[in-house]
């Protein structure tokens, strides 16, 4: 508990988490409003999934926040001050990942329900009630994906230690490598089905309710073969393994 409190103080006494939170919320909720405002009942009526259109953009910002939470510690050597105060490096890094993940989850839930809420306010006549399991996952699942992605970002930050490098790796991976891997002839599609962020995306976009889901609406659906919950389980395991590797490396490396 002490270490969680320490990491909480550290996180909220700098500015970048506040800015990133604000940007993530403005982006996601802004896209929710945009989707609601531009939806045309005649062509493609607004639905719950469509309100979450901006979730992928928010995810990027949340990962930047999570990366900065650790790389700025290396940048300003406060990681050394931390290891002096708490020589147990694994506990410290787990506490850091936990605090960042919790913030990411909170941001994700506010973003998701904020987007849904603003869409409902703009189009009060459209039925946006969250009824099915799919609709619940499409909204409430955002926080979980953000939280686990934040853990991945912390792990990458520990391994790379430089803000620019770590953020570049995460963004190139998430935004370029995963979509572009599909272009590889024959095997590309099969590889893509097992890419980590694509798998995570399955929780939010997977197994749509065929009556309400339109591919043109909402975030691009995942083509992962796993079901939504096994998929997020695999992504959680991936995040845990990556964090484990980062902790082993940080524990052996000179601070």
């Amino acid at each position: 508990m002490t270490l969680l409190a320490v990491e909480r103080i550290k996180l909220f006494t700098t500015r970048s988490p506040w800015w990133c939170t604000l940007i993530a919320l403005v982006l996601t909720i802004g896209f929710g409003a945009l989707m609601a405002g531009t939806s045309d009942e005649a062509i493609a009526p607004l639905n719950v999934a469509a309100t979450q259109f901006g979730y992928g953009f928010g995810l990027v910002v949340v990962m930047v926040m999570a990366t900065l939470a650790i790389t700025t510690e290396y940048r300003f050597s406060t990681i050394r001050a931390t290891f002096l105060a708490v020589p147990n490096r694994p506990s410290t890094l787990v506490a850091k990942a936990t605090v960042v993940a919790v913030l990411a989850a909170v941001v994700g839930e506010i973003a998701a329900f904020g987007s849904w809420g603003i869409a409902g306010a703009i189009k009060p006549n459209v039925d946006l009630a969250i009824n099915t399991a799919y609709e619940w996952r499409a909204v409430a699942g955002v926080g979980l994906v953000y939280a686990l992605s934040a853990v991945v970002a912390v792990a990458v930050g520990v391994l790379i230690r430089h803000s620019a490098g770590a953020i570049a790796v995460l963004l190139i991976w998430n935004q370029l490598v995963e979509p572009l891997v599909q272009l590889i002839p024959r095997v590309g599609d099969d590889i893509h089905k097992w890419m980590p962020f694509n798998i995570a995306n399955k929780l939010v976009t997977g197994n749509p309710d065929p009556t309400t889901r339109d591919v043109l609406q909402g975030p691009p659906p995942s083509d992962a073969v796993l079901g939504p919950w096994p998929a997020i389980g695999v992504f959680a395991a991936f995040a845990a393994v990556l964090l484990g590797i980062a902790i082993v490396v940080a524990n052996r490396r000179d601070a």
Partner: protein
Amino acid sequence: MIEAVGLTKSYGKTLAVDNLSFSVPTGRVTGFLGPNGAGKSTTMRMILGLDTPTGGSALIDGKRYRDLHQPLRTVGALLDAKWVHPNRSARAHLQWLARSNKLPAKRVDEVLEIVGLTAVAGKRAGGFSLGMSQRLGIAAALLGDPQVLLFDEPVNGLDPEGILWIRKFMHRLAEEGRTVFVSSHLLSEMALTAQELVVIGRGKLISQSSTEDFVAQATENTVLVRGPQLGHLRTALGQAGASVRDEGAGLVVSGMDCADIGELAARTQTVLHELSPQRGSLEEAFMQLTGDSVEYHTEIADAPTPATLVPAGK
């Protein structure tokens, strides 16, 4: 008590610290002296568990730093005053440190008071001058009221007022019975601050002694003797028990003062052109001791004295 036994650190083929053994006695100020690049910082980082030694070990009161429970209560360290997030306030920086070792929150205000930063406690640490950063670093080191304190080059880059403040502070800590281990590349500074000296060069131990002994040895008086024919005098000096070495055309005599040498010269009927006492400075002695172990020599003829050469640190 800090004890280093066979401490070794190599980076690839470079040996930064080479089989270093020394001890820092309890309740005294021990200076850790060596030229830039001698391995002082690396040694301190190994003592504090930040870097893993390639060989040997460093123990604080018999324990490895990483095995200490709530280490800030046992050891306070200031390795670099800039280890602070620039956008975090001084108070917030101390708050998370205090929390990490379950120290009461009011201790933060106490240490801020001790180092005189109360007025700027809410300001972002990135805007601090070096002197203020140094004070903040010392406040952090004092948080847990530790009996052992380590400071790496604490006066580096400070203005005279800041240096004086640090110096007084070290004395105060020692008077309170704490163990202080402070590194510097300035012997003159250490002569004023430290009671014990651990001197290293190129990662190896050169000497460990009390500062008094070191200074006595360092400022040993010699006499320069010049003359056209010094053969007889040289023999007589040797017989009288003085040690003699050649320097250019003259002799440098130690263990005998000018008067005695003059008498001897008269007895051996030696013509003297010069008979002058030489008093080596601390810096010269330090250079003599560590001269071979300075990593990066500058090939400047008639180089200025080290005291004026060395503003930079790590």
